[in-house]
C-alpha cells in the first residue's frame, strides 16, 4: 500500500509531463536494451526492458519479465537483445508496409560486452547451448545486416531507467532523453498552426 501511494504521488507529481513526438526524419531505428539479472525477488527470473526510437521519437517500449530463468547476466542480456531485435523487426516491417522503408540497420545498444560478442561471434559457447534459438535469431539478423548490436556505456544506457532506481539527476536526464517532457509553452491557437483544413 505504501508503494501504491508512492506511485500515485508520483503520478500526481508528474501529471503535467507528456510524450513529445517531433517531426524527425525517418531514417534510423535505434533501440536500447537492458536486463537486470535475477531481478525478480520471487522467482529470480530476469527482467528485460527496451525502448525503440524511430528517429528522435520514442515509439515502443517494454518492461517484461523473461519467461525462463537465466543462469548468467550475459544470457539475460542476450534474451533482452533478442526481444528488442524481434520488436525492431516488426517495426521495420511495419514501416516497409507503410511505404517508408528504413535503409539502415537497426542499432541495438546493449551495455553487456559478452552479449555483444555473442551476437556477432559465431562461436558456440558451452554456456549458451540452451539459448540457441535466441542466439541464432539475432546472429541471423546481424549477418543479414538488418541489425547491429553495439555497446553503450551505462552512463548513456537509457533503458536503465526501466530497470533500477537511479540518482535524481540521471533519472531526469534519461527521462528527457525518452522525450518525456513538460508541455511546451504554447500560445493561443498554436495547436491549429500546423494546417488548416
Amino acid at each position, binding site marked *: 500500500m505504501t*508503494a501504491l*501511494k508512492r506511485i500515485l504521488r508520483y503520478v500526481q507529481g508528474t501529471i503535467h509531463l507528456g510524450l513529445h513526438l517531433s517531426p524527425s526524419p525517418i531514417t534510423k531505428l535505434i533501440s536500447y536494451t537492458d536486463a537486470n539479472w535475477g531481478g525478480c525477488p520471487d522467482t529470480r527470473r530476469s527482467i528485460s526492458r527496451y525502448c525503440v526510437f524511430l528517429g528522435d521519437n520514442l515509439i515502443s517500449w517494454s518492461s517484461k519479465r523473461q519467461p525462463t530463468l537465466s543462469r548468467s547476466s550475459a544470457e539475460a542480456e542476450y534474451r533482452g537483445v533478442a526481444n528488442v531485435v524481434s520488436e525492431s523487426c516488426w517495426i521495420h516491417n511495419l514501416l516497409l508496409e507503410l511505404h517508408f522503408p528504413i535503409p539502415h540497420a537497426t542499432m541495438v545498444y546493449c551495455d553487456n560486452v559478452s552479449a555483444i560478442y555473442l551476437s556477432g561471434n559465431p562461436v558456440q559457447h558451452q554456456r549458451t547451448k540452451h539459448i540457441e534459438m535466441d542466439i541464432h535469431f539475432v546472429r541471423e539478423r546481424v549477418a543479414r545486416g538488418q541489425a547491429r548490436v553495439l555497446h553503450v556505456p551505462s552512463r548513456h544506457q537509457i533503458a536503465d531507467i526501466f530497470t533500477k532506481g537511479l540518482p535524481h539527476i540521471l533519472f531526469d536526464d534519461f527521462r528527457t532523453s525518452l522525450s518525456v517532457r513538460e508541455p511546451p509553452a504554447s500560445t493561443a491557437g498554436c495547436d491549429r498552426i500546423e494546417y488548416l483544413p
Partner: protein
Amino acid sequence: MVFQFTAPDTQITTSHQPLHLNLVLHAPKIIKNLISVRRLTIDNNVSVSFDPFGFTVSDFQTGITLLRCDSRGDLYPVTTPPSFSGLTSNLWHSRLSHPGVSVLNSLRKNKFLCFEPFNSSIVCDSCVLGKHVKLPFFDSQTTTLMPFDILHSDLWTSPILSSAGHKYYVLFLDDFTNFLWTFPISRKSHVFETFKSLTKLIQTQFLQKVKTFQCDNGSEYNNELFKKYCTDHGLVFCFSCPHTSSQNGKAERKIRTINNMIRTMLAHSSVPPSFWHHALHMTTYLLNILPCKTLQNQSPTKLLYHRDPTYTHLRAFDCLCYPLFPSPTTHKLQPRSTPCVFMDYPLNHRGYKCYDLSNRKLIFSKHVIFDETQFPFTKMHSPSPNSYHFLDNDLYPYLIHQWQNQVLPPVTHNQLIPTTTIDQPISSINQQSPYTASPTSSSTTPSSLPQSPIQPHPPPPTRTITTRSMKDIVKPRKIFNLSISHSDHTISPIPKNPKLALSDPNWKSAMQSEFDALIRNKMWDLVPRPCDANLIRCMWIFRHKKNFDGSFERYKARLVGDGRSQVAGVDCDETFSPVVKPATIRTVITIALSKSWPIHQLDVQNAFLHGDLNETVYMHHPLGFCDFHHPDYVCRLKKSLYGLKQALKARYQRFADYVSTIGFQHSTLDHSLFIYRQQSNMAYILLYVDDIILITSTHALRKSIMSLLASEFAMKDLGPLSYFLGIVVSRHPGGLFLSQSTYASEIIERAGMTSCNRLPHLSIPSRNLAPLLAHLMRILLYIAVLQEPYSTSHSLDLTSPMQFNKSVFTCMHPTHNT
C-alpha cells in the same frame, strides 16, 4: 314298496357335525321321508334317545347332543333348519355389506337368520380397508416418582414474527412437577441447543438428569443431533407416532393452555400481537406458580423447589408503570421517570422489565410504580378481536400486516395521567420476591434459563450513547474507493435501472434517440416468437459522455444485448476483434509528423457499430419500448448489437470490408491498420473500436475519403487529432505533445489522493511490499503502456512484477477479443 332309484348320499346338518344318510332310496309313493334309526346310529356312530317330547341324537362316545327335534304329533319328525341353513356367517357378512359383529349376532339370536356364530378373530380385509378408524387411546399408566423422569416437549409455530424476530416457541414440561420452561426461538434448529442448555441447567441446579424425553415426530427432534445426544447421555427418547400428536398430549394440552393465556393477556391490554414473546414469558412464569388440579392443587414451584410461591409482587401485564431512572443522567432537574409499559419479570434481574414507548427501549428497574388500571396500548389502538386468532391451534394463514408494519406512535405525557398507586414498597418486593426465596441463586428462578442465545433482548443500558450513525451522519469512505463517481450534481445521476431512467426526462430523451437510431438503421424485424429459439436479453447502459477536459457533454443511453445468454454455435460463432497496437499509433503519427501530413480523428456514430450479422439471433423487446400491437413478438436481429459476442468482430469485419472496397489494404502486421497508396497519395486508417484516426498525404484525399466513409457510416468529424484513447494530443511548433493528465488526475481523484504531496522522482522503494490493489494497478498500467514509458513501470515491477509483466504483455500484444 317300489324304489325307483337310489339317490346319492345326503346329510342332515346339525350344530356340530353333519349326520350322513347313506343308501338313500327314492320311493315316490311314500309321502314322507323316513330315516332308519339303526342305519343312522351305525353310519354316524351316534345314539338316539326318545322321550315324550321328542328325540335327541347325541354322539355315542362323547355324549354331546348333535340334534334335538321336538315332536308334537305321533311321529318323531326330523325338523331340519330353514333352507338357508347351509350359508356361512361370512357370506351373510358380505351380503349385508359388512355389518358389525353385534348386528350379525343380534340377527342370529333373534332367529331371523341361522348360521354359525361369527368368528370375530377373523379379519375381514374389506372392512379394514373401508372402515378403519383410529383406535381409542387409553389413559397413560405411566407414573413418575421423581422430577425429570419424563420431560415433555413440543414446538409451536407462530404465524406472526415477534418484535424480536421469533417465529417459534419451544416448550419443555416436567411430567412429575408440571414445571414449565418456554423459549421463543427464531429457527427450528435452535431447539437442540435449547434442549442441551436446559439439561445442563437441570444438572447444575437440581443435580438430576433427564431420564426420558417425550416429543413429537417433528424434524426438529427427530434428527441425528438429538439421537446422538440421547445415546451419549443415556436418555430414552420417545417419539410420538407420526401424525399422532395425541401421544404427546401433555405438551400439546399445555400449549393450548399457554396460548389461551397469551390471547387473554394480549386482548386485555390491547398489545400488538408481535409482543407475544413477552406474554409468553409472563404466562410461563404464572403457570409455574399457580396451583394445578392434577397436582392436588399444589403449584409446580412447590413441588420442584419445595417452597410456596409468593404472589404479592405480581402485576397486570402491560399496565402503565413508571420506572425510576438510575441517576440524574444530565442534570438534576430532569424528570425522574417516564411512563412505560410493564412487560414481564426479567430472567436475570430482580425487578421488572418495562418498555419505554417514547423511544422504544426496554428498561430494567427495581423501583417501579404501577398503575394497573391503565393500559397504554389500549389508547393507541384498539385491535379487532380477531387480531389474536393467530394463537388458535388450527393455523389458518393469518397475517396481520397492520400490526407488523405499524410504527408505534410516541405516547404523549398528558394522555397518561397517573393515578399513582404505590402497590408495594420496594423493599417488600425484594423480600417477597421468589428469587430471594430460592435457596440456590437468582438464576434458579422459575422459567429462567440464563443462556444468552435464548434471551430475546440483551439488557440494554439505560444510559444511551449518541453515535453518528444514530443521527444519520454518514461519511463516505473515499480513499481508494474507486466506485465513487465524482459527477456534478446539476446533471442527472446515472440511473440504477431503466425504470428510473424513464422517469427522468434527460435520460428518457437519450433512450428515445438511441431507439430511433436503431429503428432507422433497421436493426431488427419483429417476428412471431419461434419455438425452441434461444432468446437473448437486452439492457440499457447509461453513461455521461464527457469532453476531453472532463466536462459534461451529453447523456448517452445505449441498448446492448446480453452476450452471456448466447450459445456458441447457435447464435454466435467467431468472436475476436483486433485493436490497434500503441506502437503502431506512434509510428504512424511519427511518419505523419515528419511529412507534415494532417492527422484527423473521426468518430463513428452508432450506425457503423452494427455490423452485419451472419447468425440468426432473437432478442426480447427493449425495456420501455415494447411494440403495443405485437407484444408477444420478438426481435430478429439483422445487425449486431453492442454486447453480443460477435459484435466486435462483426463491426470490425464490416469496416474492413468496406475500406477494402475503396482501395485500402489491410496491414498484415497490425490488423487495425489500413493503408492506401495511389502513386504519391497515401492514407492510413487506424481503428480502435469506434475511434478512427485518419492520416492522409493531402487534404483533398482526406476529404474524399471522409466523404466515402460518411456515405457508408454515420460519421462525425472530430477535426484534427486532439483526444484519442484518453490521451490529450496538443500541437506545438515542435511537434505533438501527448499527455494523459486528464486521465491521471481522474485516477488520483478516484483514489482520494488529490491533496497528496507531489513526488517528482521515484526513489527506490523498499522491496518487501504489500500486495497492491489490482484495479488501481490495471489503471496505472494503462498509463504506463500507452504513454509514459518509465513513470510507473519501474516501480511497479519492483512491487509486483508478475502482474505488471502480464499486463504489459497483454497490452503490448493486444489481441482483444470477445
